[in-house]
């Protein structure tokens, strides 16, 4: 793994899951849609297939719920919903993230 890839892997770890939670905060979304939106974010540089294990873990820890639903075209879709504990986790992350980001910006010299 190159240094650049290593860095982006480290940066994603611990933050990507909250991006997933935020994606289904307002509206339920199905797997392929969530994955596709990640794929469109170039700076996340995620292999789309790696999002599914992440969704699985978030469901197992109880932050997401999922249910299968028929689709107008193609196979049934698996829709993901934010649970109450997922919502609380996302809220907690938002608070932590802001102070974390401000500290890193100050220390690294990337303040606006």
């Amino acid at each position, binding site marked *: 793994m190159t240094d650049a890839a290593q860095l982006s892997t480290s940066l994603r770890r611990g933050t990507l899951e909250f991006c997933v939670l935020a994606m289904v905060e307002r509206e339920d979304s199905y797997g392929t849609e969530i994955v596709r939106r990640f794929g469109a974010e170039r700076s996340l540089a995620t292999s789309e297939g790696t999002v599914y294990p992440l969704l*699985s873990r978030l469901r197992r820890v109880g932050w997401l719920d999922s249910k299968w639903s028929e689709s107008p075209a*193609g*196979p*049934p879709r698996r829709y993901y919903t934010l649970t109450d504990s997922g919502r609380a986790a996302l809220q907690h992350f938002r608070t932590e993230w802001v102070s974390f980001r401000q500290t890193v910006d100050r220390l690294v010299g990337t303040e606006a």
Partner: protein
Amino acid sequence: MNRTDVVGEYLREVELRLSGLPLLQRRELLADLETHIATLRAEQGAQSEGELIEILERLGSPEVVAAAAYEEAGPRSAPMPGPMPGPMPAPVPPPTAPAQSAGSGLPWWLIGLVAAAVLLFLVGCVGLMFFAQTSGTDAPPPAPAITRVG
């Protein structure tokens, strides 16, 4: 039926690498991937082998997907609980998975080398101190005498 062959082969390659995962997680991931591919095929009308390969490339190689599955499965599924002084410190230990994610952390030979250097240095220090002490005990008589006189 060449196009389904590509998809089937991909899924088999992923499955081969998931043998260390709990059964339900393995099945879930394979179903998710299969649904993903089928959904995109239906939505985009992807039929040609080229289009299918593009979908698979965006999913990532079986190695990358399997590595993510082990990482997200947590420490319980990692069948290597104790510390093992092997050359691969990666937490992705399924026997069928290639050592793709190795390379993080310090190599063992480097740690050994540093430890050896430190040990040598310490031995050297002790030796020097011992030498200084023994030559010091020989020297005292004239030295204090001079300072007292001066």
